[in-house]
């Protein structure tokens, strides 16, 4: 929170999602592709089967073009984007796991050199030497997953690390092995999704064989990844599963994501059984597209679930996604965010402008002004109040009330509220009064968010926090002095007048 802020109109989270999703799909394909390609080549050599050999060869071109550069660049891209949108958070990860990443880099070197050699030595070296290179590629690629899996799973379930801060306690955390099994299945799904295309280029008489061959791989991948997924769910702490499982999950959106994830896998399974195994002659481009939809849907859904259940933390129970450490809450509440960050302290001292800088430091890593997770849409406005009061056509007042107000006033029915609130005419006559009212509501919410921080600070250190106990479990707390609460409230209330300080809304750089 003490870094300058890169304010992206589309939202830093959206940008990260784009980079991360493309990277994980390509990087998992690079691993699974390595396995299937080298086994395919081994079989081709044993059976003297030129079509199998061509499948391996054609697939290796995709591997080299996609994984060695796109995979590598997008992997670096995750660091680049994380450094831009959550520098404190990525710094904390790197300071704890630099040697893990360094070890992964060693495997990455082996992977990339082997991939380049493998692709460029077809027809040029002996079969034995070529297969050796292929296997070394797979070893390098898979072990890079073995390492990075420890860091990724640590972020959601840090386990004993929360108490000991020891590297291996965090690395072999509760979800490490299930996640490794799950991702091992996923790498196969990704590889088949890509390799079907080169398989379609085989001669018409052999195409069904190759399609069926890949179908068996996909089927195996489905079972391994499903087993890994269920194991992953089973070892998650109750505090996490309660967010998306059970009759009344805390986060309904995540429960829907879980359904989507499993239905996507079912789609992939159905397409495989019908079009790849039972009737491979029917397999066409559409089949491959459906398989990709199923495989990517499952993978994307799982990643969304993993990220969503970790919210609002980057390292669960230790570091929030905006770079705030749980251990900093008391200190910043006492001294103020301006004492903590020179970027907040510097500039126009007027309360609204000051509040704008607080917004940038604390909220902008998740919220944009009008784009993704728009803060303006989340705030009460005079226009909202008019819609509720107007009730035109009849019944719409209740609808607007439910949409705009029930998050904070869930215990008050619409009719009851309608009797308490000013009429439409009164609102139009004195909108400033409504703005004052809204300012009060915003201030109350910020006070609640600040109180939430004290709950985090008071929690027993070394344990994973139970997010079910919080009203706004998806948000980091607000930290700062009472004066800073007021400044931020003034800034947020000013957004209703369309007054957005350029520093805070960020003009994009």
């Amino acid at each position: 929170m003490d870094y300058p802020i890169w304010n992206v109109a589309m939202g830093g989270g959206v940008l990260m999602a784009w980079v991360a999703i493309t990277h994980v799909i390509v990087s998992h394909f690079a691993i699974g592709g390595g396995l299937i390609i080298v086994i395919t080549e081994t079989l081709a050599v044993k059976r003297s089967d030129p079509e199998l050999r061509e499948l391996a060869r054609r697939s290796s071109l995709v591997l080299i073009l996609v994984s060695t550069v796109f995979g590598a660049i997008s992997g670096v891209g995750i660091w680049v984007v994380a450094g831009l949108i959550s520098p404190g958070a990525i710094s904390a990860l790197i300071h704890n796991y630099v040697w893990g990443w360094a070890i992964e880099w060693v495997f990455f070197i082996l992977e990339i050199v082997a991939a380049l050699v493998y692709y460029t030595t077809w027809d040029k070296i002996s079969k034995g030497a070529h297969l050796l290179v292929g296997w070394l590629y797979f070893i390098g690629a898979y072990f890079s997953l073995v390492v990075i899996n420890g860091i990724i799973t640590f972020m959601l379930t840090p386990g004993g690390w929360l108490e000991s801060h020891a590297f291996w306690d965090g690395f072999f955390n509760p979800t490490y092995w299930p996640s490794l099994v799950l991702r091992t299945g996923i790498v196969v799904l990704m590889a088949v999704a890509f390799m079907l295309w080169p398989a379609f280029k085989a001669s018409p008489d052999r195409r069904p064989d190759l399609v069926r061959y890949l179908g068996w791989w996909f089927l195996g991948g489905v079972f391994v990844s499903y087993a890994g997924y269920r194991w992953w769910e089973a070892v998650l702490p109750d505090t996490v599963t309660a967010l998306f499982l059970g009759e009344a999950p805390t986060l309904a959106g995540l429960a829907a994501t879980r359904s989507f994830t499993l239905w996507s896998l079912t789609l992939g399974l159905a397409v495989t059984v019908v079009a790849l195994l039972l009737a491979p002659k029917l397999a066409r481009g559409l089949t491959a597209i459906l398989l990709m939809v199923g495989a990517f849907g499952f993978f994307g859904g799982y990643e969304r679930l993993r990220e969503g259940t970790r919210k609002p933390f980057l390292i669960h129970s230790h570091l929030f996604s905006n770079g705030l450490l749980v251990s900093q809450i008391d200190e910043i509440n006492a001294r103020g965010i301006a004492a903590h960050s020179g970027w907040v302290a510097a500039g126009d001292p007027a309360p609204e402008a000051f509040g704008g800088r607080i917004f940038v430091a604390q909220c902008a890593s998740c919220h944009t002004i009008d784009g993704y997770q728009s803060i303006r849409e989340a705030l009460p406005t005079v226009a909202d109040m008019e819609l509720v009061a107007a009730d035109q056509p009849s019944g719409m007042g209740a609808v607007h009330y439910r949409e705009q107000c029930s998050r904070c006033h869930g215990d008050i029915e619409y009719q009851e509220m309608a009797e308490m609130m000013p009429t439409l005419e009164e609102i139009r006559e004195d909108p400033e009064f409504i703005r004052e009212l809204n300012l009060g509501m915003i201030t109350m919410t910020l006070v609640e968010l600040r109180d939430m921080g004290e709950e985090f600070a008071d929690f027993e250190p070394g344990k994973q926090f139970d997010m079910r106990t919080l009203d706004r479990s998806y948000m980091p707390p607000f930290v700062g002095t009472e004066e800073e609460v007021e400044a931020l409230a003034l800034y947020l209330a000013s957004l209703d007048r369309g007054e957005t300080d350029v520093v805070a809304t960020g003009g994009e750089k």
Partner: protein
Amino acid sequence: MNTDLIPALDAAGMPGPPWLFHFLLVFTFFLHLIFMNLTLGGTLMAFVANLRGGGRTADPNAVLAKRLMGVNTYAISLAITTGVAPLLFVQVLYQQYFYSGTILLGWIWFNMLVLLMIGYYAAYLHKKFRGPWLGVSALTFFGIAMTHVAVHLIHVQPEKWARFDANALAVLGDPTYWPRLLHFVLAAITFAALVAAWWAVRRARAGVDVEVNTAIAATAWRWGLWSTVLIMVDGFILLGVLPKPVLLGVMRGGLATLGPLTISILFGVGLLMMLARAKNPVENPGLVSGTLAALTLTIAVMTVTRHQVRVLYLDPFTSQFHPTIVPQWGNFILFALLLVAGLATVFWMIRRVLTSPAEGDEAA
């Protein structure tokens, strides 16, 4: 010194002594430079050579361009791969400055990734279709060099962050920006030129396309000579425009800073003498190999000087922060062992490949 805008040190502490990360940063950056030089210098040279070749496939310039872009098939991937490690270690040592510098550049820093992607695929498209793709590739790699110099100069000057926050492009007006950029670009061209000359000399002496390879060697050698002349001139300009405290720091740093600087200047002069000596490099294979080795050594020494200059730029700020050291020796030893084993495996694999040529049905 006002440190208000500098973020706090990471609370997790440094997972090893700073000297270890300084060493790893310099060492891995040197590895990165080898492949980065081939990529950047090779692509720029190939672009010019391709134009001079005028579409005649047998023209030595066209062959040189094709050869340089052939090397780039490997060099681009390896430049990215070897770039990961210094990017990792700089975040451990200079997290407060590096992240701030990149954030102040914002989209420009992010677009470095886009340029890299375009540069690579344009190089691939050039091999397939020719057309304007080589120019696109050269332009994007040059853009990446500009971005890196910009982020470097911003991150080492926290006293100017408020100005860069208002206008990041103000970094282009930094007195050291253009000499520094030119220094890196010219070094990249020299390295790519000498690698091309060395390879052509080997081929010519092996009796392969002697006429073309002799012409390529001579052309590449001239590239190396003239870019080294320019580097020497630019290097002294760069030294002259360094901020006074930094320059004084270099001069007063004793053997630690003056040693590498003096060695690299002497190497530079030596390189010029070696490059000027041979009119026909094919007749002097030993000199060509020696020149390439001397250049590689110069790059290694200059990498040390570059790092020392960064340390001196940041000294007024870093001296006010005292990181907690939380060493993870066991993990470092595991990394070191795996690095040795990994590199040994790579060399063993390449050796096995080179000793297993096959053709026809015997081939993979």
